[in-house]
Structure formats: structure tokens, C-alpha cells
């Protein structure tokens, strides 16, 4: 009872604080906007040093070298961005943003459902557009996310959203884009509270667990071939995997597991699969490439998983995979993943210190991600015809010293770069000014 009471109190407190901070979504683009003179980082590896970027009705109409092209800008809102940098909006895939507000407050957690097989569970309806954590992404250039449920063998279905909306429905870029599976582990951990060695041991149930998964795929296929007169929601949700309308995201880290997962998808004719995590994918990069399987690579800022690993292994994984020709994008799950998602550009920056070029690193959080998620027709690069989801930074946006945004646009709408945090910053800076 006492527990519930504290929870209620916490909830009330929470509600009362939530009410003041959030940013009002921007209105539709009405006027054509031209950004002039900026270094444009296209997202596909190319750079235009003195660029002219024009967008209208939310769509990019022009991306050109301003020193060559002569275009009449009359009637447009002109942003002089000389010396600044323009980037396509960064995309954080495989994130639980908006599903959890405060990790330790259970009442704010909506990221994992009970049950082992939950393909029918849809993340997007729980996605909180008013989240203070989500709005803190935008000042760092992270403008799009794939909202993904957690837990279970099959966690559920994700949806891709943009980060400036009144409601989840308005936020959707692509609904129910993929199903997320957690591949069985080759290792299991000892239960130290029962006096077992807490170290990792081979998982004796691995084969059984893979067989269960296979059986689930068989059942799904059988169901979807039948007349479905009696509805089975989970099995029905699996249909998209077989007709190619949904991607299968498989969370798997170890070399053997990755191999097994890729072979599993081939055998089951699952049209598009994506490796998520992929810690040891570098060991079999050629095999991954041969099978044209893309990788949403684990957070760059991690400790190596084995004591004997190279200290910089997590920093250089992207380089190894990219060099082998694998399509790679960066994800960020792990400790405090939601608030840390705003560090996505710095994850990419770190891969540059460990071998990639800056433009290659940029691809890992823009165009490659869009391709892997299947939204590259509209997002992921500064390309004519795509949606104007982009931002202007004072300097190199992959370096925290210079990732300082002056403008950001989602579908041409100029969004607020304020947040709960910037407001507090200003309020308290003001407090001390008045005291002086």
C-alpha cells in the first residue's frame, strides 16, 4: 500500500512538472527557404563547400554549389549560413525514446510487454511526443527515430517517427516498419544469488530456443496460408516478414549467433533482415556482406566485451565493417540509452578517430540508416525531392565542441531548439544575473 502511495505521489509530481516544458510543434512550411553559403554534408559521402539549399512545401528542391549555380532567391526566406554546416537530420534507429521517461520510475516505463512472442505489440501507440527526453534530441541534430519495443524473444513492431509532433499519429514516418527479435544467446549467466558463478557459460538451451523460433516461423506461415477465420493476432502480425512489407530486426552479437541468424532468414525466405548490435559481425564481415545483410551496429561508446579485446575495439568496429562493404548504421542501446541517444553524432565522430572519414561516419547516422530502415526515398540525405529534414550547425556536428545548432527543420517546418533543459539553463543564468 505504501509502495503504491509513493508511486501515486511520484506520478502526480511527474504530471505537474510535465505540464510546463514542452515545445509546441512547428507549423507547416508556408514560405520557400534558402540556406546560402553553408558547407553542405549531403549524407551520401559528398560535400559541397559553398552550397545553396532551397526547400519548399517541406521538400528539398535545390542542392547546388552556389559558386556555380545562379538562382533567383527573390521571395524566399534566406538564411545566410556562411561558415556554417548543413546536415540531413540524424536518425536514431532501434530506440525506446518516448516509451520510457524516467528509467527508475516504473510508472513511466512502457517499453517491454510480458510474453515471449509479441510481434503484434506496436510501439508507436505508446510513443509520447511530449517526452522531455525526446525534445532534448533536437538541439543535437537527432530528428528522426525508430521507436522500438524491448524484451522477449520477439519484442514487437517498431515505427519510425519524426521528433516534432502533437501526437504519435502525426509523428509517424513509417508505421510498423519492422519486427524485432532477440536471437537466443550462446552464453548464459550464472545466477549468483543462488551461489552460482556469475560468469558467462555456454547456454545449454540454445538449440532448443532456436528450434522454438523455427517452429514459430512455421506456425506463422501456416496460419497466414490459411483462411484465418479465427484470428491469431501475433501470427497475423508476422505476415509482413514473408511478403517483404516488414523488415526483421534481429538483435544478435556473437559470431555464431549472427551466422545462425543469417542462415535462419535465408532458410525461411525472410526478405529483409537486419542485424542489430552485431558486436562480433566484424569477425565474419565477408559473410555478412555476401548475404547483403545490413548492420545496425552497437553503441560506439562501450567497453570491449572480453578482457583480452583491443581497448579500442568498439570504436573501430564500424571501420572494419565499412571497409568490407557492409551497409552499416549506428544504434545506441545500452545503459541509459534514451537520454544518451542525443550523443549519436559523437558516436559517429569517435569512429573517425578510429579510421573512417568524416563523411563516411556521417553516413552511419543519416543515409545508411535511412536505407536500412527503408525511408531513404524521403530522408537521410540532402537530395532534391527528399523531405527537408535538416539542420544548420555552427561547425562540425560530429564534434561536441562545434555541434551547435542554429536552425533545424523537419519536413520543412522550422522546429524549436528549446527544451526543458535550455529553459532551466536560461532561468538560472538569469537568476544569477539579477543577483549580480
Amino acid at each position, binding site marked *: 500500500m505504501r509502495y503504491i502511495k509513493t508511486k501515486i505521489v511520484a506520478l502526480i509530481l511527474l504530471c505537474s512538472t510535465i505540464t510546463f516544458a514542452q515545445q509546441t510543434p512547428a507549423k507547416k512550411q508556408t514560405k520557400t527557404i534558402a540556406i546560402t553559403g553553408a558547407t553542405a554534408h549531403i549524407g551520401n559521402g559528398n560535400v559541397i563547400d559553398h552550397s545553396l539549399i532551397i526547400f519548399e512545401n517541406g521538400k528539398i528542391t535545390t542542392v547546388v554549389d552556389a559558386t556555380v549555380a545562379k538562382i533567383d532567391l527573390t521571395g524566399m526566406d534566406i538564411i545566410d549560413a556562411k561558415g556554417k554546416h548543413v546536415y540531413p537530420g540524424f536518425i536514431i534507429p532501434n530506440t525506446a525514446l518516448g516509451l520510457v521517461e524516467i528509467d*527508475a520510475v516504473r510508472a513511466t516505463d512502457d517499453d517491454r510487454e510480458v510474453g515471449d512472442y509479441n510481434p503484434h505489440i506496436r510501439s508507436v501507440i505508446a510513443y509520447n511526443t511530449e517526452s522531455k527526453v525526446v525534445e532534448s534530441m533536437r538541439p543535437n541534430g537527432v530528428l528522426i527515430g525508430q521507436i522500438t519495443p524491448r524484451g522477449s524473444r520477439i519484442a514487437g513492431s517498431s515505427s519510425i517517427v519524426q521528433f516534432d509532433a502533437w501526437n504519435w499519429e502525426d509523428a509517424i514516418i513509417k508505421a510498423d516498419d519492422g519486427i524485432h527479435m532477440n536471437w537466443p544467446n550462446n552464453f548464459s549467466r550464472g545466477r549468483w544469488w543462488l551461489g552460482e558463478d556469475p560468469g558467462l*557459460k555456454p547456454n545449454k538451451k540454445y538449440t532448443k530456443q532456436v528450434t522454438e523460433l523455427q517452429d514459430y516461423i512455421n506456425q506463422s506461415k501456416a496460419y497466414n496460408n490459411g483462411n484465418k477465420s479465427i484470428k491469431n493476432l501475433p501470427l497475423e502480425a508476422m505476415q509482413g516478414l514473408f511478403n517483404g512489407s516488414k523488415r526483421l530486426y534481429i538483435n544478435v552479437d556473437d559470431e555464431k549467433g549472427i551466422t545462425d541468424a543469417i542462415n535462419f532468414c535465408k532458410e525461411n525466405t525472410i526478405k529483409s533482415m537486419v542485424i542489430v548490435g552485431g558486436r562480433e559481425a566484424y569477425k565474419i564481415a565477408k559473410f555478412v556482406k555476401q548475404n547483403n545483410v545490413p548492420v545496425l551496429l552497437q553503441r560506439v561508446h562501450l567497453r570491449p566485451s572480453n578482457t583480452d579485446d583491443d*581497448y579500442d575495439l568498439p570504436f573501430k568496429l564500424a571501420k572494419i565493417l565499412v571497409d568490407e562493404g557492409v551497409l552499416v548504421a549506428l544504434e545506441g542501446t545500452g545503459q541509459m540509452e534514451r537520454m544518451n541517444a542525443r550523443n549519436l553524432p559523437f558516436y559517429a565522430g569517435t569512429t*573517425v578517430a578510429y579510421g573512417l572519414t568524416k563523411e563516411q561516419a556521417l553516413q552511419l547516422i543519416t543515409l545508411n540508416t535511412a536505407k536500412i530502415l527503408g525511408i531513404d526515398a524521403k530522408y537521410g540525405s540532402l537530395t532534391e525531392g527528399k523531405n527537408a529534414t535538416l539542420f544548420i550547425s555552427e561547425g562540425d556536428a560530429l564534434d561536441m565542441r562545434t555541434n551547435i545548432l542554429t536552425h533545424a527543420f523537419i519536413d520543412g517546418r522550422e522546429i524549436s531548439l528549446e527544451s526543458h533543459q535550455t529553459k532551466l539553463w536560461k532561468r538560472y543564468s538569469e537568476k544569477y544575473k539579477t543577483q549580480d
Partner: protein
Amino acid sequence: MIKKYLSLLVLLCSISSLTAQEYFPKNNGVVATNTNFTAITNAKIYVTPNQIIENGTLLIKDGKVVASGASISIPKNSNIIDISGKSVYPSFIDIYSDFGVEKPKRASGSGRSPQFDAGRTGFYWNDHIMPENKAIDKLNYDTKKATDLLKAGFGVVNTHIHDGIVRGSGTLVALNNYEGNESRILDQNSAQYLSFRKSVTSRQSYPTSTMGAMALLRQLYVDADWYAKGNIKTKDLSIEALNKNKSLVQIFDAGSRANVLRADKVGDENGIQYTILGGGDEYERINEIKATNASLIIPINFPKAYDVENVYLTSSLALSDMRAWNQKPTNPKILEDNNINFALTTHDLKSTKDFKSNLLNAIKHGLSKEKALEALTTAPAKILGKSNLIGSLQNGSFANFLITSGDVFDKETTLYENWVQGKQTIFENLNTKDIRGDYKFSLNGEQYTMSIKGELSKPKSEIKTNKDTYGSTITYNDDWVNVAFTTKDSTKQEFIRIAANVDANKNLNGKTIMPNGSERTFYATYSKKEDVKKKDKDKETTTEKTYPLSYPNSAYGFKTQPKQETLLFKNATVWTNEKEGVLQHTDVLIKNGKIAKIGQNLSDGSATVIDAKGKHLTAGIIDEHSHIAAASINEAGQNSSAEVTIEDVVDDTDISIYRNLAGGVTSIQILHGSANPIGGRSALLKLKWGQPADQLIYKNSPKFIKFALGENVKQSNWQSFERFPQTRMGVEQLYVDYFNRAKEYEALKKSGKPYRKDYELETLLEILNKERFISCHSYVQSEINMLMKVAERFNFNINTFTHILEGYKVADKMKAHGVGGSTFSDWWAYKYEVNDAIPYNAAIMHNQGIVVAINSDDGEMSRRLNQEAAKSIKYGGISEEDAWKFVTLNPAKLLHIDNRVGSIKVGKDADVVLWSDNPLSIYAKAEKTIIEGVTYFDIKRDEAMRYAIKKEKSELINLMMQAKNKGLKTQPIKKKEKEDLHCDSVDHEQH
């Protein structure tokens, strides 16, 4: 086998009735006193490991040795046993045994809240202190186990209850299966036993950590002394027992080389030299182990090879585990080489049957046989102060001895008998003829050979003709052999049987029974198998290579410690952190571990010149809030744990040390966790990778303690509803109470009256006297202000608020108080109290004039604190120079070590980092990390180490494959994973 023991028992019980105690009534016959001697003659007698009598006589009577020598006169009333050609050794002693003592049962109950109070009255306040326990009260003589031990060569064990931190006294028991406790109990109060592990019989939560157990022992010794002086009015049976046990040998179960050093430290501080049970890994830090001067008890449970057939599983096997397999058998040899006194134990072995093979393995790896015998006889006897009674065959000792066919440490040797207190247990008949060898016989005109191998009385046979080999079985008993072997026609499953008697020349005489029932005479001639022994020996001497140690003994450890150098950096961009600011194209000379010169065109004849053109040289990063390199982080058993110190549990093997060096970190403060409002004392380290733990700790270290506020100390985020405080209101009162008590304690101390030393209050007193600084885990403005007000009330200052995520809200008050802020760059949203945490916090506090540091609290983030510092440029527009100070000079100031480190200034310690780029850039990498002129990380050397690690692992995997192919047992692979410790981490082993 069991049958055989039973028959022996029957035989010997009848003898034992002769020795009933003289004052006992007798109703089953007349009193028949046996006054005969027993003389074992013509034996090679090991009176002690280095006093050996060739062809001597051992004379015993009433269970004791009367005389031994080459020419002693044998009394007429002697029973003479002639064992010519055989050897006599003292029986072995195991002084770390749980023989006959039932394993204590785990306390039941699963309440949601931990239990804080003791579960009993009249004893010490902590249930895990049980000096009043006595093994004798629980002793239930286990004949079966005794027989196993006798078979392994043991005659005496010192047993105790393996449970709790103080475990009470042991009992010295002779493994005499034929008499009762009246004879076999040699000492019912033999040694007191201790450990760092809690009792399973109580759920009392304190201590939850090794450092807590250490603190508890220290306080216990003080309390015992106080009690002995009559200052405690109430009854404490634990302390009374402890004081009574003081005169006993104190044996400490440490179980690892790191804990051996910890136990010895506690002992030394209290004037006690513990005898310490090691972990078999002492060789990894042998100099430090030797320096303890402790006698050790050493287990020989050497790890089996890992099963490396599965390539994927093998890839997660750590070099340190592979080396343990390769190196651990050398531990006894290395102890011997270093003149460390030690006894061996069967402790930790799955079965006593493994004892001999493991011991032989240690001997194969260089342990001398003389030392092995000493470690099993005279050494343990001496540790217990019982050298006159056990462990040798000197006159007056118990007649505890082994009769063997030869060298007791040879694989082929047969143990015939183990005598304890003059009572013999027979494993092999002394007269059994050794029929192992080759036999020839003919049957139906065909010539057969039969080789007999294996154990003396349990041999194996192999029957062959020129062409074929036949399946066969053999039994051998009382000079008779029975053999059965298959016929040529293998489809039929028919057997030819032989029964034969062994004659004086070991030839076999008897009959053969054919499958059809017809009988023939059988005669086989014996010939000694040639060269078998030699061949086996040859095999054994091709011993595997023992891989060299490194410090620490894991991947990236140093085989030879890097040395202090004179280094000259040329043309660097130097971030001085002093008023000179950032200097371009500047030289820096490092000499004798200090920064010697900064300037242009420097030169020094003895210096190694490093071209630093285009690179940046900075002071090393200092992490104010770290939890790496520690074996415990939280003592969570009580709401104050000021008595514990992280310095007790520094872990010099943590790979995080090396990884932090690779991120440019040179100094850290390991803070206690945030489980309680008053936490434990800190350890300030320099990350001198490869050095032993105590060398990492700062010399003349400033004293720190962790305090904590908010959700963690209220235990808001887990199921605990009993412990005070549950609210921020309670936290304040707890502090006020403790500081008041500390003041009262001080008043008493100063009054000259006797007082009980209290380690917890002593620590708090240091705070009041401004000798110890507080680094307080804090989030919310209300509590931050509260603690400043409490401190002001007691006339001292808080030194640092760590985390301090709402510091920006009370920066003016913090400035007025004079406290520093050590914060995260951008963490928030992980719990309710960080809802208003903002990444501009550092900037606002800095702008208000507060000394600001950015810390990690995380073994991953600490590898790139340069990036975290750079975030304050983005969030709040801090200048690059100031941002850099957030992770160097400012934490040095907060830790009161800025006179030694934190900037590049002539005379300061040469703790510097060479970066590939501007250190605040996301593109920067540390290339060299130097502490006091020693290069502990070098990006090129790291490259070479990676190669060497790969090579060594491949070789070891190959050796393990060979071991498996030889038929040796293997163990499944487990993956080594060092847990990343945070504020809320608790020791596993204490649960």
C-alpha cells in the same frame, strides 16, 4: 572395495578391545593388558623429511614411537614385521579440513527487507562473529571419509566449522578408525579459524563486502580488548570466547593471493600473525606474499584444461584463465623457491582421490619431494605447535606412518598400510607379489603373451598372439589369479577361463577351462617387463612449457615493468593549465619522474627525444569519481559505513586500469558507493598498471570519504522499507546525530577517561577536525543546501558535491560555502531526482566561481573524459582551456593533489599525456600516457601486445587440445567478464 574395508575393520576392532581405558569397568572378560612392542624392521625410514634411516627399525608401543634407528635393540616382547625393501613415512596432516563436521544450513526466510540486527542475544552484535563455536561440539567421526583420507596418506586432520567471519576453534583428530574419541581427539581446541565470508546461518546484512568484513574484524579486536578490561557491563559470550582463543594459532581462510594480503594487513594491525589459506595463485605476486611472513596453507586444486574444441566458445576464453591452467601447478615450487613456509591441504579438491595426482603434478612442475613431504608433515605440525606429537617419527610422536613400496611421491609406488596411533589400516597385503610384467603360455599349440599392468592388486591384462589381441579380464587375490579371455571367433562371445596360483618366482600354475568345459593344465612363465618405467618416465619429462608471468597476469600485463625515463618532448602544443595557457611549438623535459623544464630548444643528453610536432601534450586526466580497480564498492549493510575503506580492496588486476590509461587517465578517486548516507573512505590512485595494489595508492594520500543523499540512501528504487532513513528529512537527522556522537566521543577522549576506540566515530571526528574531506553524492537542491547547513553547524565545509546535478540551482550558495562541484557532462533521466539535471550545469557552476570537475562514475565513460569535458563547450560556451581543466587541474584541486598533479608545471609529477590532436576534439587519441616518467600506455606498444596475446593464446589452445587428446579431463569454457561497478554495486561473494 567396501567389503574389503569391512573385513579389515572386523579384524582390527578385535585388537582395539585390548586398549580399553584402564579406569573403565569390564564385564566381558578378564582385564588383559597388552604390553608388547611392535617393530617394523629393514625399512627405509623417513623420521623427518631430511632425517632418513636406510634399513632401519621403527619400534612402537601404545600408539607411539619408542625408538627408530639403524641399530636399535628390539625388546623380546616385540611383534616383528619385516618389510625389507619398503619405506616408512610419517602420515600426512591436513590442517584445513571440515572432516566430520556437517555443513551449516543456510538460514531460511525471505523477507523483503534486510535484517540489520543480530539474531541472538548474549553474543557479539554481529551474527557472523562466532568465536564461541567449537568443531568438537559438531564432530561426528566419519569412518568412510577417514578411510578415504587414510588411503590418500593422511593420518591427522585439524577440522573446523567452515562458516562465518570468526569461526571458533578447530579440533585435531587422528584418523583412528579402530578406537573411539578418547584416543583420536588430540586437541579439542586447536587453532581458531577466520574468513572474510559471512555465516550462511544468519541473514544479518552487515557486512556485505570484503572491506566491511575487514573493518568488522578491526573493531572486534578493539571491543574484545575493551571487554577484557572489564569496561562492558553486559554479557558477550562471543568476545569471551575470542579472548580465550587468543592463545591459539589463528588460521585465516583468504582463498586468493589478493585476500592473503588483505588478511595479513588486518592481522598485522592487531598484532596477530595469521596462518593463511591461500588460493593457489600466490605466484602472481610472490614478493608481496613473502613480505607477509605468514605461513600459508596451500590448496592444490589445479584447474583442468578448458575444452577448446568449440571455436566460438573458445574465442571468449581469457588469457588469464588459460595461463592459470598452465601456471598454477608451479605455485608450490615458486613458494619453495622463495623460502615461504607452507602446508598443503586437500581443501577445495572435489575428491581426495585427486590429491596424489595433483601433488605429483606440482612435483613435475618443480616442487622438491623433500619440501612436499615437509608441507604434509612437519610444516603443518609446526604451524599447530604439535611438532612433538605429529608430523615426524621422532621418539614420543604418535605412531602415524605409511608403509610404501618406495618413494611415496612416485606414481608407481604402492601404499600398503597407513598406521595411525599404532593402528594399521591395510590397503595392500605387504606380501602380495608384484605380478606386473609379461607372461608367456601356450594353448592348443599357439603361443600367447599376457602383459599384466596397472595397480598391484587390481591389475589389468592384455592377451595377444602374434596376430591377434583378445579381450580379457583378470582378478588377483591371495596369490591366485583368475583370467578370462575371448576366443578367436569373436562372433560367438565365448570365453576361455584360467585359474592359477602364483609361485615364488611369480610363474603361474593352474588350469584352463575351454568354452566346451574341457580342462587343461596351465603354466605361464614370468618375465619382468623391460623399460616400461623408463618409457613412462620419458613421457613425463617432456613437460609442457610454463608460460611467463606478467604483471598483472593477464592480457596487456607487463612481462617486464616499464622503467622511469628521461623524456624530451619536442615541438608539442603544450596545455599547461597554468597562466602560460596553451604554448605552441614547445619542448617539455621529464626527468626523475618530475616535469623538469618547459621551453624552447631544450636538450638533455640522457633523454629519449619524442617528436611531438602536431601533437598535444597535457597533464593526465583525473577522474574524481571512479569505481574501477576495486573488489568492493559498497558496504551496504548499515546506514553508515565510515569504518570501511576502499584502500583495503584495491584490485590491481582490473583491465579497466589499462583501458583508462588508453584514454589518458592517470589518477582516480575510487569512491565508495551510494548505498548509505555515510559511506566509506576513498582510495586515491595513480594508475600504475602492473604495480601491486598498495603501490597504486597515493603516497601521503589526502583523506576522503563518500557521503550520499537522495534516492539511493532512501533506498527508493528497490524493495527496502525498514532501514532509516526513508526520506530526505531523515537523512538530515542521521547526519546531525552522527556528528553529535562524534563530538561527544571527542570530548570523552580528551577528558582522559578510558574510552572504547570506535573506528566509525574516529573517521567522523577526522571530518569535524578538517582532516578528512567529504565528497557527497547529491542531486537535488534541497538536500544540497541541507548538507551545507549541517556542515556549517558543525563548523566544517563540504569539500565536493559529486554528481551535483542541480548544483546550478544553488550555485550561489555553494560558492558562499566554498564547496566544489564534480558533475556529469550530460547524464539525466535515469531516475526521478535527475529530472531537472541539465548539461549546462558545469557551465553555470563554473561561471559562479565554483571549482568544477567532470567525472565518470563509469568505467566506459572514464575512457573518454576528454570528450565529456568538451561537451561543456557546446553546453554553455566554456572556453577550451577551462573545459580542459574540468578533467585535469580542477579535480586535482578538489582532491587536494594539485600541488603534485593537474598541470604541466616545473616540479610537478610527470603525469602527462601525448594526444594525436587537440585533446578536446572528438578525433583525438591518447598516444602515450605517462605517470612519474614511466610510460604506462603507448599506442605502439599496445599494438605489439595485441599480437603477442594472440600468439600466446593460440599456443595455449594447442596445448589444451593436446591435453584433451591425452585423455586428461577438461572443463567447460566460461567467459570472463569484469563487471562494471557503479555507485549501487554490491559484492557478489558476500551474498
